[in-house]
């Protein structure tokens, strides 16, 4: 109707369309009429793809003791489209449920998102060997019923629940994030099981079976040419000493708190106790969800991974770090002495101290945990003229403390690690105004109170750094992966910004703590232990008792931190627990002299009902 010079192009376009359609019809003619092979293929070409689940990697401790292994479980799957015309009542009876139960379960299955009547749906999960054995023969008779073998976890030791973690049905999120998973699969949900999920899970296999038009299995497709064997997951050797872990959990029984023990020369975590704890086998199998709900409702929070996630003011244990920073900055030398008149007094401000001789040098200030010493030292650093202003001074201080492993996540292989908190200049500038504050304003930092927060793992890591005289390896729970390598970040040495020569006097002070200081009661005769007590102020109740230690003094094998919440002074509870752990680890047993201490601790119940 509209005249234009391209009128004839309508024919070109029409011709293209006709040509394409003609080619398609010819192709269809060849597929549907000429070529008879498709018809043949169709007659033996209904597949059943059966996933074969790999066995999950095993977990052993550092001495080769098997901790976590697998047991079989059987999921009863139903393909609704194929489950035609079978006796519902007989089927329900076989599984020991009622017909009403059966109808209810089918209703739930059909309402699930992604439901398809052609793919196997999970009807009943995790039958044990004992439950499955008697019914296995009978199930064969029902059309459209398949049994999917899976592996569940079983535990030789009922310890380290949070560190090991558990496996559970994958969430929608996990399925979307990773093609590996299908609805109903299991995957690590926390702890080592989560961090090392990809190592432990292996690779799924697949078996392709042929079915006839009624859905009966007729054999393997092309003799299993396309089948894939599952590749089992890799076994992991943990750095944990499971016997030490068990002992720690027993000692912490009836107390709220944590133990973190590290091998200083490698960063390998020897024990990671969170108390109160629970039996990891509670979260296996069909009782998992009920138990999980009960644990999450428990007011004592057994699911809270205290050594990794609890954050406390480190209290007097932090004085060792202060002693290092003050020396490095040239504020004090081992011979610097400060007086103490039952505390630190400056105008209206007072920080109390307990009775001891005065003045003290650096070594003895650690031994007696003198508050005044660190208030004086810290104040003279922050207000020192060698820095441009207080902001620069606190940032120099902060960088040293961070190099000792505080303020950021250490990067351990346990999920949900917390970073603690170390304030910097901008924090105080925001509160008090640009440089309108001085050493006195923030004096509580000097004794590990106030804004500073640390996790028990970070405190243990400080012990390891002092034990090593200046460096640490990122704490980690995995020692070896069979047929794999551990993350390179775990074999990278982190040097502190403090010169190694400044560590010796701190080590000596910590030794004095055990010989004649606040840790005397918990001393071990045969081992040179270096320790430091601490008390974390708790605004909500009785203070938390903290102890940090390493042993032996030379060539240390273990560094440890113990926190007992609401138990008061560090020497009373945390210190004996730490030295018992050290003795157990280094000697294997507790001598007679200290049996009564062990007994007292095992029996003590500090949790108010």
């Amino acid at each position, binding site marked *: 109707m509209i005249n234009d010079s391209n009128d004839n192009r309508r024919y070109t376009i029409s011709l293209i369309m006709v040509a394409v359609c003609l080619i398609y019809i010819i192709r269809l003619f060849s597929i*549907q009429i000429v070529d008879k092979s498709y018809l043949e293929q169709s*007659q033996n070409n209904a597949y059943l793809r059966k996933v074969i689940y790999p066995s999950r990697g095993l977990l052993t401790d550092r001495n080769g003791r098997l901790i976590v292994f697998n047991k079989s479980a059987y999921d009863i799957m139903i393909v609704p489209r194929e489950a035609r015309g079978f006796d519902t009542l007989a089927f329900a009876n076989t599984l020991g449920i009622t017909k009403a139960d059966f109808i209810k379960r089918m209703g739930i299955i059909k309402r699930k998102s992604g439901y398809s*009547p052609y793919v196997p749906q999970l009807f009943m999960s995790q039958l044990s060997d004992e439950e499955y054995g008697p019914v296995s023969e009978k199930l064969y008779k029902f059309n459209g019923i398949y049994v999917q073998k899976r592996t569940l976890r079983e535990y030789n030791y009922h310890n380290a629940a949070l560190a090991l973690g558990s496996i559970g049905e994958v969430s929608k999120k996990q399925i979307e994030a990773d093609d590996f998973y299908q609805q109903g699969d299991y995957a690590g949900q926390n702890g080592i099981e989560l961090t090392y999920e990809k190592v432990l899970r292996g690779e799924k296999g697949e078996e392709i079976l042929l079915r006839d038009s009624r859905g009966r299995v007729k054999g393997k497709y092309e003799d299993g040419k396309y089948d894939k064997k599952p590749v089992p997951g890799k076994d992991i050797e943990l750095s944990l000493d499971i016997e030490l872990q068990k002992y720690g959990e027993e000692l912490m029984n009836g107390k709220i708190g944590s133990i973190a023990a590290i091998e200083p020369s490698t960063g390998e975590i020897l024990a990671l106790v969170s108390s109160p704890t629970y039996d990891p086998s509670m979260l296996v199998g069909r009782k998992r969800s009920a138990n999980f709900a009960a644990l999450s409702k428990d007011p004592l929070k057994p699911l809270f991974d205290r050594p990794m996630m609890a954050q406390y003011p480190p209290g007097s244990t932090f004085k060792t770090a202060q002693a290092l920073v003050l020396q490095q900055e040239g504020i004090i030398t081992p011979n610097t002495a400060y007086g103490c008149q039952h505390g630190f007094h400056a105008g209206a401000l007072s920080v109390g101290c307990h009775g001891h001789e005065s003045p003290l040098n650096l070594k003895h200030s650690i031994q007696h945990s003198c508050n005044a010493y660190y208030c004086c030292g810290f104040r003279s650093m922050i207000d020192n003229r060698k820095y441009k202003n207080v902001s620069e001074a606190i940032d120099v201080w902060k960088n040293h403390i961070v190099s000792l492993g505080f303020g950021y996540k250490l990067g351990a292989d346990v999920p949900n690690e917390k970073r603690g908190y170390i304030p910097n200049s901008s924090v105080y500038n925001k509160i008090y105004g640009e440089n309108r504050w001085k050493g006195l304003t923030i004096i509580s930092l000097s004794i590990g109170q106030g804004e500073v927060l640390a996790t028990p793992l970070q405190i243990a890591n400080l012990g390891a750094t002092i034990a090593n005289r200046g460096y640490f390896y990122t704490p980690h729970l995995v020692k070896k992966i069979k047929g794999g390598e551990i993350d390179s970040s775990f074999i990278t040495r982190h040097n502190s910004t403090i010169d190694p020569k400044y560590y010796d006097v701190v080590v000596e002070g910590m030794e004095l703590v055990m010989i004649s200081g606040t840790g005397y009661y918990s001393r071990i005769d045969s081992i040179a232990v270096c320790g430091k007590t601490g008390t974390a102020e708790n605004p909500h109740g009785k203070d938390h008792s903290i102890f940090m230690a390493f042993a032996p003094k030379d060539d240390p094998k273990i560094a440890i931190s113990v926190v007992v919440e609401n138990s008061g002074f560090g020497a009373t509870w945390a210190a004996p627990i730490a030295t018992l752990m050290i003795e157990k680890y280094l000697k294997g047993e507790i001598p007679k002299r200290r049996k009564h201490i062990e007994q007292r601790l095992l029996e003590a119940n500090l949790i108010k009902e």
Partner: protein
Amino acid sequence: MDRRNENILNNIDIWTIGLYIALVIFGWVSIYGASYNFDDSDFWDFSQRFGKQLVWIGCSVVIAAVLLMLDVKIYTTLAYVIYGFFIILLIVTLLVAPDTRGSHSWLVMGPISLQPAEFAKTATCLCLAKYMSSYGFTMKNIRQMVVMCLIIFVPMLIIVAQNETGSALAYLALFLVLYRQGMTGIVLLLGVCAAVFFVVSIRFGATPIVDSIPGENLGMFAIMIMAVVIALSMVYFYYKDKTLVKTISILGVSLFAVGIIVYNYLDVKIKFSYLAYIVVGSLILYLLSQAIRQRKWGYFLISIFVAGSIGFGHVSDYAFNKILQPHQQTRIKVTLGMENDLKKSGYNVNQSMIAIGSGRLTGKGFLQGTQTKLKYVPEQDTDFIFCTVGEEHGFIGTTAVVVGFLALMLRLISLAERQRSLFSRIYGYCVASIIFFHVAINIGMVIGLTPVIGIPLPFFSYGGSSLWSFTILLFIFLRLDASRKEYMME
């Protein structure tokens, strides 16, 4: 009903309506076949996809009726506004849409999920028609050309970002419309060549020409043959230079005849690609000499095309194997249906061809298809719905569907050509082109002729978004057509 509406109903093209209804009904029957279950036990509550589709169809009827009632002027007046709205909606969707198997294209509002990308096609067609029919528009103005291309590419790129490459590619169909409006056919030819050469170079890049002689590349070989054939056709059509065509054809045929004889009877391992290079080289030299002797640029350009094709083949082969990461390679291979293990799209195509092939002449009968039911092809009632047609209704059914679509497309072209308004004509061509692209790619994929690109078969595939968007696309044109005598819109 007032007079105007009555008038419109009288002027509606009943052929198109009839074809639309027939295709929708056939589509629903196929979905019914794909998802129906025989069991009627009291507790099996089977998926009701065919039931839902019936609801979508009902809604489509309402949508169609409303579109026919609306004043025809709003489509021209609001074309830019509608386009702008959909561009914003596409961007919003990209930002807020949840991750659905890697794609961010679904707007979820409670129980309803919609795919704005489907509807944006209509908006783009309206906008393109409006722009190209505006006063003073000419294919010779560079600035206008740029705007025209932007109208097509902006929504396309957003949809690519949403990870719906298939939907986005459908916009390329609009180049057919540009061709109708005067764009040189060379663009179309080069575009098709580039796509075909790319696919061929990757798909056959590692295949030897002759099994016994490794190291040669069938992909490159095929590209050379295609380039020579296209070049010779161009020489023939533009210059009627029979001598050149004859010379090169005879050279090529005799070279290969000798080559095959030598290879078969004398057992000499000839490199066939060298023969192809000889043919290509001679052709280029001949073209250049003609260009100089006759002072015709065209010869020169054709020789550039031949050389460029060979270069393009090498570059895409190199880029694919050397520059792309292995996982990117895999993704493209999957899209091209080259991952022939039983799990990926290759499996789906293999299965769908078995299903179609087993239908034979008359099919297994309604609801009798076993292939499409027993085994599990995920897109059974969406992208692979054509399988069900093939299996249950055989060659007769599939041919009927193909012919039905062809009739619809040709009818749309003839309707477009009878428009008095340029806007309506361009829009009509847009509708025909988009339907053509979908039909060609979807059916081609199911019968193993085109790459596996996930786009729906118009009016057939399950899903509200797809059915409604095609209904809207089509009925706006029918409304325009019904008023063709009343309004001279420019």
